[in-house]
């Protein structure tokens, strides 16, 4: 019963309502549209703001508290593609390259889903470790690399190209824009500490919720436009897009608990595992596994898993954590 109440509370947050507005605008074919540079600008703002905040939290908490759950996050990110790949390949009968591409997206993470989860925890007064942003930053790349290796190994038609494409994939996965922004802001934030936070807070903290609402409006439009593709991708992928976050979210909370995080922190680890990337992973996969079909992984990630997570997945992860910690 409590789960339904918390889902209801989550649905009435500005972020989710603006997301719904965006979906509505796309479905009724409104001419509402954000120019691409604005989308990119909002992304940069959000990543820098949460990276900086997380970095300040690391400097307050000390690195010795962060490394173990950080390691858990990396292992978790690298493991998720290893169990999602066979499911997609054999239960979903996808080609090996498509299965690997989707697996990489589900192992990697969505920053906005994570931000929505921290908002939600704030709203229900559930404390969490502020340095959890560090886990977001380091969990972005491992799954992409594992996914690309899986895809390359399975399609060994051009044997000698593996090394070359791994090189460019590693570059893209470790030095792509979102990773550089997030990691960079984390480092800057941890170097500046609280004193630096005071200086940038009027820009990076106060307007944050408004920017997030605007970004989710755009995400709603982007996701809503892809709802038409749901028919194309088929029932299996739709089911996968919902079941994967449920399973991965559960495992993520377990990892968080094992790594010694609080209930709130484990919830965030759960939502990181449950979320699917749509910024870092598509860019890296498009360059490294260009033969994979973008409609499949973008639709699954943007039109199924993202809406599912910000409405139901987040309260679900908290409910799992409450169950495991009780």
């Amino acid at each position: 019963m409590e789960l339904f109440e918390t889902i209801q509370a989550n649905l009435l947050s500005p972020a989710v309502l603006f997301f719904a507005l965006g979906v509505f605008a796309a479905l009724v074919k409104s001419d509402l549209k954000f120019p691409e540079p604005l989308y990119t600008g909002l992304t940069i703002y959000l990543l820098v703001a949460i990276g900086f905040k997380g970095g300040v939290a690391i400097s307050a908490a000390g690195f010795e508290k962060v490394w173990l759950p950080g390691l858990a996050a990396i292992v978790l990110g690298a493991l998720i593609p290893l169990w999602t790949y066979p499911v997609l390949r054999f239960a979903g009968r996808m080609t090996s390259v498509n299965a690997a591409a989707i697996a990489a997206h589900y192992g990697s993470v969505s920053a906005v889903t994570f931000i929505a989860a921290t908002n939600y925890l704030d709203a229900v007064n559930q404390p969490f470790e502020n340095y959890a942003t560090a886990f977001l930053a380091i969990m972005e790349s491992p799954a992409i690399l594992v996914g690309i290796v899986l895809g390359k190994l399975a399609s060994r038609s051009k044997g000698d190209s593996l090394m070359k494409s791994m090189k460019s994939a590693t570059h893209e996965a470790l030095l792509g824009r979102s990773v550089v922004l997030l990691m960079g802001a984390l480092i800057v934030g941890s170097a500046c500490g609280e004193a630096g936070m005071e200086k940038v807070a009027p820009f990076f903290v106060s307007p944050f919720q408004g920017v997030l609402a605007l970004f989710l409006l755009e995400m709603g439009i982007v996701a809503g436009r892809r709802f038409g593709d749901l028919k194309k991708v088929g029932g299996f992928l739709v089911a996968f897009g919902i079941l994967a976050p449920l399973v991965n979210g559960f495992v993520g909370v377990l990892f968080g608990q094992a790594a010694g995080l609080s209930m709130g922190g484990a919830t965030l680890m759960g939502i990181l595992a449950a979320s699917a990337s749509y910024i870092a992973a598509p860019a890296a996969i498009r360059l490294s596994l260009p033969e994979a079909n973008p409609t499949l992984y973008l639709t699954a990630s943007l039109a199924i898993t993202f809406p599912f997570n910000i409405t139901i997945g987040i309260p679900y992860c908290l409910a799992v954590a409450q169950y495991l910690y009780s």
Partner: protein
Amino acid sequence: MNLHAMKLVTIVCEAYARKPVTELLSKVGAHGWTLFSVEGEGSHGKRFADIQESANIQIEVIVQSDVAEQLMEKLSRDLFASYAMIAFESDVRVLRPGKF
């Protein structure tokens, strides 16, 4: 005025193909190129150009006709299968042929 016959190769492709295409351009010996963001619709569906995943670009490059030939051949052999892309060439006349 002293005008010289050259080929203008136009490539319209998804934004993610930018790197492979521009790398190919320098490999075949093009001396420069111009790139702009575009949107449209084609066999890969409508390109909304709202996020980078669905953004399209147009790359224009002026080259000697033998370079154009090579470029078209390599585009169709190496990149057409993997990326949303079209390419065409046209005749142009330029000033200062040494720039191309």
